[in-house]
């Protein structure tokens, strides 16, 4: 059994790059969960809406890329805020199953809405960078992926700063820890909830635009939202660092699984299904993940 080291290495690099994107989306998921105790099954659809919005702005109004991008971010922030206020606020206090079902319902609604408005075929983004690909550690990567890795790292750093040093970030952490105490200290829990959804939607849209630029925008983009689950479970549902690590690990794992599959096992689609096997494994062994807090009672 000869190991193909070059291929393996290239797959690792590719996995890290994609994993950074997973990490970004996972961070948004964890942000919402930490702040408002809501599991957002519609994370993938936030990505999708952001991607389509940016594409539409670019195509319809011929704006330069950064203008369209910033407009999309602003739109998604407003979108997340409104969504929280209109749909999710009435559900505060309802059992977990209800909240999960509402986000699932929203994901179905938005996915169908996007298909209706923009069709089912993959649409390419207009070319954005002058040089479409560049050389990273011996692997040709699309420039936009390299950009996205830089942006992802930037976001992770800014999230870390936000939660540690800024007033609103501290308010979010306090609310996540104990809502009533936070309220008694004068923190507006309403604002915290709404803002967490807004930020989550905005950052997901960023990831969505990146994926859209690389692969074209299509309804299948929202499947990213499902891949988020193995990442956040691995990292721990309430840990931002865990989300990042989880995303990277899942990205690398997918590619490693593909390597094992194509060279050794020849099953066919291990690439798609391996994260879910890992998910089950983690739930059995260590459900609170690598960095999560241990408060899961087990029977």
């Amino acid at each position: 059994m000869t190991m193909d080291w070059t291929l393996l290495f290239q797959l690792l690099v590719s996995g890290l790059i994609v994993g950074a994107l997973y990490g970004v989306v996972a961070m948004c998921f964890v942000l919402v969960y930490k702040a408002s105790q809501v599991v957002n099954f519609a994370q993938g659809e936030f990505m999708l809406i952001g991607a389509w919005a940016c594409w539409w702005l670019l195509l319809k109004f011929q704006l330069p890329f950064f203008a369209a991008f910033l407009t999309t971010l602003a739109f998604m922030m407003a979108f997340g805020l409104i969504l929280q206020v209109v749909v999710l606020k009435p559900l505060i206090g309802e059992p977990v199953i209800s909240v999960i079902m509402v986000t699932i319902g929203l994901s179905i609604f938005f996915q169908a809405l996007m298909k209706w408005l923009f069709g089912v075929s993959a649409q390419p983004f207009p070319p954005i960078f002058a040089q479409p690909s560049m050389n990273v550690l011996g692997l040709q990567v699309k420039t936009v992926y390299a950009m996205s890795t830089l942006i992802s790292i930037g976001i992770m750093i800014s999230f870390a700063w936000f939660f540690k040093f800024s007033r609103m970030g501290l308010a979010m952490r306090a609310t996540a820890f104990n809502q009533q105490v936070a309220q008694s200290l004068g923190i507006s829990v309403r604002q915290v909830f709404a803002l967490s959804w807004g930020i989550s939607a905005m950052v997901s849209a960023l990831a969505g635009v990146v994926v859209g630029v690389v692969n074209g925008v299509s309804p299948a983009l929202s499947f990213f939202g499902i891949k988020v689950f193995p990442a956040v479970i691995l990292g721990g549902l309430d840990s931002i660092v865990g989300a990042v690590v989880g995303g990277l690990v899942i990205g690398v794992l997918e590619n490693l699984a593909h390597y094992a599959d194509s060279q050794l096992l020849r099953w066919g689609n291990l690439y798609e299904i391996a994260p879910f096997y890992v998910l089950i494994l983690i739930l059995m062994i260590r459900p609170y993940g690598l960095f999560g807090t241990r408060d899961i009672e087990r029977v």
Partner: protein
Amino acid sequence: MASTIALRPCGDFKTSYGSDQIVFPTRLSLAFCIFGIVALCFAPLVLGKYGLSLLVQIGYLGIAALGLNILVGFTGQISIGHAVFFGFGAFASAYFSNKLNVPVFFAIPLAGLATTAVGLVFGIPAARLKGLYLAIATLAAQFILQDFFARAGWFTGGVAGTAAKSFSIFGHDVAGDYQYFYVVLVYVVLMYLAATNLMRTRDGRSLVAVRDHYLSAEMMGINLMKYRTMSFGLAAFYAGIGGALYAHYLGFVSVEGFDILFSIQFLAMIIIGGLGSIMGTLMGTTFMVLLPEVMGGLAKMLSGSAIDRMLSLSEGIVFLREMTIGAVIVLFLVFEPDGLAHRWRQIRAYWKLYPFSH
């Protein structure tokens, strides 16, 4: 005497456990139920092929949804992977009747038992998880089992799917929807009666106790693991029976019909109908089956008109259907979280107590 067949006493005057656990509290409700079943027996004479197919769909989906309601509504678990149990029952029944030459009459209950086994296998580890983690675990199980269906050619025919034989009793071939309707009706009545009975036995009460306050239940001596696992097994049994009926109705089973959207539709059925209500399950299933048909009918009515052109309805009808499913789930949860069963009880109370408010 005649005035008391429809009224309930104002207070609890039962003098025996038997009378306390009675399924139909008034003679009129029993009469309505029997009348309903008899009326359904005449349905094939009145309804066309289309209406009959809708009723059969409500039948087998209702059985599977009832299983999910036992799991989610009565035991408080979560499962986003119900469609694969449904699919497993369908494939198992086709497998038994094709490869092992078991008569279809027996293949259907056997498929239910096979699915129970699978459900127990998933239930044992799942019983140790709670809430959100259980939901995610069942989500993963959905994808893994779907992948298994696509790969296990010996069992499911792989991605090409497998044909299922038609139902036959003692050599008499039950051909056509007309006669299959009665088979489904019998199963629906049996399974629903079984579930109603389950809820008034000791085991049923234990399930409810596990849902309401598991710590107290454990302190009272109810084995949480046992009842959670049993609840998974029961849900799988009902799903397997539903799936087997589906397989022999359609005559062909293919893996792509059992995707995550199908699982979510089951959840929608029980949430819209009312968690923890047996009659609600049937109401929710009817709602979810009729909703796409009503939308299709509306679109057809509006086709060619200005609204059609503005919204491009005819091309987008499939998307509008999905959008409506999503929107209905959200709206029901926001405005009517206890479901149609609760609304029905409110309506009935309103009429009973008119002009007093409830």
